[in-house]
């Protein structure tokens, strides 16, 4: 920890440094993480994040089940935006399988992903307000997130652990009532977002707490492989949805918001702007899904996607296929593949290795939260202890994803 972005503070008084344990059960460390902080008065001299309290052996568990059985576990990586994790894993498997999903499925995945991203950013900004003692905007943000999760529940069947995306498709198509509900709820979310911004964005207390705190330079971002809104707040427009478009993001019209300085205020503004962009993308998805009309949402390959149930009940071939598919799952050709999507926190990559069998040899998740925790000492060294809270909030470390 020798490198320091800023010079260490020099104290006039001759005093010993104090070591403070913050966490693992601290209200501002959502999830469980512990900070070992060396303090000089109220100034952070050094900090060591200790992660791992939520380690559940995700990768080991995936290696012991079939390719299918890992999908519900990916829900539990980033539990604020489960569908993004679903999509990342499933698309990595599809890359190995070499299949491409039907157009309607891709639009559904984009719609679900953007709703998920919206919910994640709302949590991040709302929780940050709460931890800066602003209770009202937190409630607006959480109300908007609840509405967003209502939509997800309608679409996927669960609010948080959606388990929606399947290898070669999605679980089911849009419910009939969804378009009307989307119209109503997206208008409500926009109103709440407007009120949220009115209360905090130009609020001097909020701005003073965020501005010039938790600054990280562009070079440090690259050295630490920081991605996502934290990198974009520095001014680097790296967004995999634009730079390596997957699904149908190349047919969607949206902007990449970037910041200037790379402090918490920039991160906040980037997240708010991304929420508006997510709503914009979701609007386009709804319009396109309406235009596409009824179409298959799964690949036409019963060896990959479990056969249609209507046929399983009535035909022998599909019944046998169902037994084969469930007990073995798809047989993924031997090989290795890395697929990365732009999750709410940054690049969420999955590196999969298959030996041609029904079980993965290796499922590696590249978690943005874990990677973003490493440069945290750089951002807060020399700052006040109270600045740690907004910095940590806007990094949006999610325990499930960080510790896996």
């Amino acid at each position, binding site marked *: 920890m020798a490198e320091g972005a800023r010079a260490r503070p020099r104290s006039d008084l001759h005093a010993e440094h104090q070591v403070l344990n913050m966490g693992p059960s601290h209200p501002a460390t959502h999830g469980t993480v512990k900070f070992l902080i060396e303090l000089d008065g109220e100034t952070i001299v050094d900090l060591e994040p200790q992660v791992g309290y939520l380690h559940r052996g995700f990768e080991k*568990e995936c290696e012991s089940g079939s390719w299918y*059985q890992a999908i*519900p*576990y990916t*829900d539990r990586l980033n539990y604020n935006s489960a569908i993004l994790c679903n999509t990342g894993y499933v698309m990595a498997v599809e*890359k190995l399988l*070499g299949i491409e999903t039907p157009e309607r499925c891709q639009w559904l995945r984009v719609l679900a992903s953007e709703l998920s991203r919206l919910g994640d950013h709302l949590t991040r900004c709302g929780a940050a307000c709460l931890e800066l003692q602003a209770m009202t905007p937190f409630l*607006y943000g959480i*109300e908007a997130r*609840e509405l967003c999760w209502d939509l997800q*529940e309608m*679409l*996927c*069947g*669960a609010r948080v652990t959606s*388990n929606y995306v399947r290898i070669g498709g999605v*679980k*089911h198509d849009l*419910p009939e009532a969804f378009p009307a509900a989307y119209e109503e709820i997206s208008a409500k979310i926009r109103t709440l977002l407007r*009120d949220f911004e*009115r*209360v905090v964005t*130009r*609020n*001097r207390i909020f*701005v003073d707490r965020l501005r010039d705190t938790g600054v990280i330079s562009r070079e440090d971002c690259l050295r630490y492989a920081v991605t996502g809104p934290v990198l974009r707040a520095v001014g680097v*427009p790296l*967004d995999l949805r*634009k730079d390596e*478009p997957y699904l149908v993001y*190349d047919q969607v019209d949206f*902007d*990449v*918001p*970037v*910041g*200037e300085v790379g402090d918490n*205020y*920039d991160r906040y*503004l*980037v997240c708010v*702007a991304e929420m508006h962009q997510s709503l914009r993308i979701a609007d386009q998805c709804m319009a396109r899904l309406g235009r596409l009309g*009824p*179409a*298959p949402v799964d690949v*036409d390959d*019963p*060896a990959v996607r*479990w*056969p*249609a*149930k*209507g*046929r399983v*009940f009535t035909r022998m*071939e599909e*019944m046998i*296929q169902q037994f084969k598919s*469930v*007990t073995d799952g798809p047989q993924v050709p031997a090989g290795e593949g890395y697929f990365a999507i732009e999750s709410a926190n940054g690049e969420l990559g999955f590196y999969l290795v298959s030996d041609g069998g029904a079980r993965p040899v290796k499922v590696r998740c590249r978690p943005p939260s874990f990677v973003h925790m490493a440069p945290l000492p750089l951002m807060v060294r020399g700052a006040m202890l109270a600045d740690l809270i907004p910095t940590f909030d806007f990094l949006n470390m999610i325990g499930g994803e960080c510790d896996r």
Partner: protein
Amino acid sequence: MSEAPITQSAWPGAGPTEVTARVVPVRRKAGIGWLERRYLPMIVRGLVTTGAHFFRNLIGFATGRRRAFVVQYPEERVQYPDAFRGMPVLVEDAHGRPRCVACGLCEFACPSHCIDIVAGERDDDPVQRAPTAFDIDMSRCMFCGLCEEACPEEAIVMSEAVEIASFGRSDMRFDMERLLVPEATLARRLSFLRADYDRADASPRATGGPR
């Protein structure tokens, strides 16, 4: 790299896609002027927003059309959407028997291995298989719904029940008696599932036999 077209293949076989990233800097300094730096006018402005919410909620409460986003659980309950996945239960047919034939597919599909089935024969009809014991450890079940998707008999479905908390771990082990639910009470879920079967049937998928 912001304005230049970025050509890179993200999908194997998709070929390079040309995307011009449109980068919009956030307006960092916008709106934080003289007025915003004085506390008092901004407090008033904030109060207008929060007050609007307060009075709308209050009027809604007084007129009986509540706007507040709070459900007074357990007196009030939300209506779950059709797709909702609650606790998995076993479907009981008109004769009071489980529809399950103890094939064990849900046991295979379950990622958390929380289903235990002991297969046997039915007393009245020895040709038919039926579970003699069917246990789900609800403390391990994660309501993912893969058992429902795997079941070839429409025998295990996700109900709307979510209130399964108990004081002991042994109470979380649900046996067949507690799991069996008459078909009539699951009509909503079953019709949701069947609508999906029909749609899948209409799609060009499901042609050709197993490979």
